[in-house]
């Protein structure tokens, strides 16, 4: 009897409190991407909702778009989200959000409130990737992508692929952005998205039935952020320099010309397989110099330099060409960042780490001090492989005696 009574009591406990945050899979709207825009003095929050039925392999897939995009406006983020229930049948579910796109307007205005919302709410993950958009964020979310069914996930995979294979941009998660902006230099860089191709946007499923889509979302330019505002853009090439300086180059392809001055057509290329950048700030008089030490290793992909690469000294010559090219990429990037007066390179942090006292004195003037810095570059390139052939194709064609 006692046991039965106890069991009854226990089941009562379950019934009283159980299930309060239970939610079925078909009661949630899985969001794959969020866009933030600033329009007419209000935040416009755009959500890209996954339509699971359209994705699963069964009949019906392919005919309809796999995602639905809708916006809601409000004075702050959470009110805009809660307004979404006026037009959505299901609860918005942010845990599987892949990317956040910040429109150019919103970025210029300052996206601090977005970061605040991300820090405060448990259902928003800090592993979400952040992008800037050259136009509105909504436009980016509306684009369909070939190969992938969920555009949000596609963009996320795009940046991962880029980071891994050519290192022009790096993946910036909300977490990373927060770390940078809450750090000493209060600056960071976020890759931008732009619509390439014709003006017509790829927001219809029919557009994907052609072999080439009229327009496509691509990574384009690096946005420099100071505080929580967009300061300026730097180009793809300059972004590469930034990546080298911030030790974010993993694998990349560097093209170079054969002449010693680095002039002429860049007919050769080398693949960087591994690289590391060491930064060492030094104070010279009242000027700060950043010593940049780069050790890279890679293999030759393509060469029109002639010569016989079976000989080590000729390989060394090619290595020097690559080193020069890397140095010039870095110098370009450095100039561009310096012009924008934004320390997205983390030089300030390096100074803080090694000369905390000097940094303290300088911290308030850093925005002025930073552009006065100089860099001293040492690049050390090692070609560990020249590929399967020694001489270049043209060289091999030249028969002796002809």
């Amino acid at each position, binding site marked *: 009897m006692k*046991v039965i009574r106890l069991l009854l009591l226990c089941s009562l406990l*379950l019934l009283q409190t159980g299930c309060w945050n*239970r939610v079925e899979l078909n009661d949630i709207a899985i969001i794959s991407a969020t866009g933030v825009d600033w329009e007419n003095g209000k935040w416009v929050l755009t959500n890209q909702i996954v339509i*699971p039925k359209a994705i699963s392999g069964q009949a019906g897939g392919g005919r309809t778009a796999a995602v639905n995009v809708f916006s809601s406006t409000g004075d702050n983020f959470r009110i805009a989200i809660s307004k979404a229930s006026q037009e959505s049948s299901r609860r918005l579910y942010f845990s599987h959000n892949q990317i956040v796109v910040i429109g150019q307007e919103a970025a210029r205005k300052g996206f601090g409130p977005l970061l605040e919302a991300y820090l405060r709410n448990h259902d928003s993950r800090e592993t979400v990737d952040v992008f800037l958009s050259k136009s509105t964020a909504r436009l980016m979310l509306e684009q369909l992508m070939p190969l992938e069914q969920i555009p949000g996930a596609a963009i996320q995979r795009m940046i991962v692929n880029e980071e891994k294979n050519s290192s022009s941009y790096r993946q910036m998660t909300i977490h990373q952005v927060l770390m940078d902006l809450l750090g000493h230099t209060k600056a960071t860089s976020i890759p931008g998205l732009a619509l390439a191709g014709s003006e017509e946007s790829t927001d219809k499923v029919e557009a994907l039935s052609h072999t080439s889509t009229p327009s496509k979302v691509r990574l384009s330019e690096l946005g420099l952020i100071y505080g929580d505002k967009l300061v300026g853009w730097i180009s793809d090439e300059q972004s590469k320099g930034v990546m080298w300086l911030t030790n974010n180059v993993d694998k990349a392809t560097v093209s170079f010309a054969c002449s010693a001055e680095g002039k002429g057509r860049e007919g050769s290329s080398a693949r960087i397989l591994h690289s590391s950048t060491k930064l060492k700030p030094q104070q010279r008089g009242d000027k700060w110099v950043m010593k940049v030490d780069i050790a890279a290793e890679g293999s030759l992909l393509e060469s029109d330099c002639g010569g016989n690469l079976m000989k080590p000294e000729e390989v060394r010559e090619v290595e020097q060409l690559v080193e020069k090219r890397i140095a010039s990429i870095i110098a370009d990037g450095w100039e561009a960042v310096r012009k924008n007066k934004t320390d997205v390179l983390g030089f300030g942090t390096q100074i803080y780490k090694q000369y905390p006292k000097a940094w303290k004195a300088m911290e308030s003037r850093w925005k002025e001090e930073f552009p006065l810095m100089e860099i001293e570059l040492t690049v050390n390139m090692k070609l560990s492989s020249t590929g399967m052939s020694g001489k270049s194709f043209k060289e091999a064609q030249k028969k002796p005696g002809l």
Partner: protein
Amino acid sequence: MTQTKKPALTPLSPSLRANVQAVNARFGGSSDLVVRLFRSDAAPERELGLLYLEGLVNTDVINESLLAPLMSMKLPPHMERKSDRLVEALRTSVVSIGGMKEAAALEEGLQQLTDGWCLIFIDGSTVALMAAVGGTKERAIGIPQTQTVIRGPQRGFVEELGTNISLIRRIIRTPDLHVQTHKIGTQTHSNVAVMHLHGVADQSIVKEVYRRLAAIDLDGILESGYIEEYIQDETFTMFPTLLNSERPDAVAAGLLEGRVAILVDGTPIALVAPTTFFSFFQSPEDYYQRFDIASFVRTIRYAAYVMSMLLPALYIAVTTFHQEMLPTTLLISLAAQREGVPFPGLVEALLMEMTFEVLREAGLRMPRAIGPAISIVGALVLGQSAVQAGIVSAGMVIVVSFTAISNFVMPENNMAATSRVIRFGIMIMAGMLGFFGIFISVLFVLAHLASLRSFGVPYMSPIAPGAKNSGLWRDVFVRAPWWSIMLRPLDMKLRNPRRQSSGRKPPAQRH
């Protein structure tokens, strides 16, 4: 010796007719009681009576070894026709049968009759002769039906106790293998044999088994399950605290480890006690195949057991509480499957689990001839069609199927059954409280397991209480090579805990 109140014994009468009549009366004139009255050449003036129950005896033996010598016997002259001498003479020099006894009371004779002995009354004598002429038709020793192995002996127990004991004796050939037979059941008088390896098994446990068996006062013991419920340490537990097996090699292995085996007449299932939780994960085959493979398979068995208990609950918890834990693509495909499913995840899971349990039970009970029908109904109608009709999601069917299959990995069916029942409780907890509910349930089950004992041996040993001697861990989660398993596994005061001397690792042979 097991009955507490012994009925009063009736002494035999010197009159043959009276004795036969008394037996006949006690059997209520049963038609299978055969009474054969005859006279012997040696003592033609005295009538002899042979009684037996038809079907329990071997008539060939009666004809050749009993009736023929009795009828044609010639007594040596010194053995005159004195009645007491005659009985002695018959026993020592006439009847050529191994098992012979004398009975002075009617009840003794009746008991032996039901055991398949025959009764010989001699007119004028108050002592009856009893001869073992049993020989009923028995099922031949066959392949074990429930516990199959690929490598290993293919002999299983049968229903006859004597055969079963002999099967074990044929494996452990030592006089130290002691057998004590008890008669349990006030009506069935079933023979229950308790076996142990003298000098290895803990004597106090053997005595405890005798004591618990003696306390049984049921009218009938039809299967070892009856005994199991009487002698287990804890009734209100879903976990079996006695191992059962229909494999003589498994029982012999238990005996060698210092356990006690209990065999019941009429069933091929023997009990082994004491036992621990981990014994249920050890298949006899673990010891016959290579130790590394056996360890791998055993690990899988543990994993499958956990799966069979927790998988549906985990599925419910993840899909209704913790969607953020899933990879996005998986979440989307699960969500797509759930589109249009009318029930909440918990109801869906309970529905499918119940369906499977019904199918299982039906498959077990139905006549063999309609076997294919149930597989069609089960696999096609309930599985595929339920998904197509949108009643359950495909993911749920996969989960339920995998759960069901992992349940069959267990070498011991009764342990597998436990997880089937517990699974439902955990599912409901998961449906109400998510992972938190699963956590509480698992904690509860673990605490309960740690509280159990089997004949005084902690059920979770050697884990709880943790055995300090590393030798006791070599046959728990993995099976170490034989030469390294020096100790008998039970964490108790065994008479002889070592099963081999150390340093028996075979040296590597290099040529």
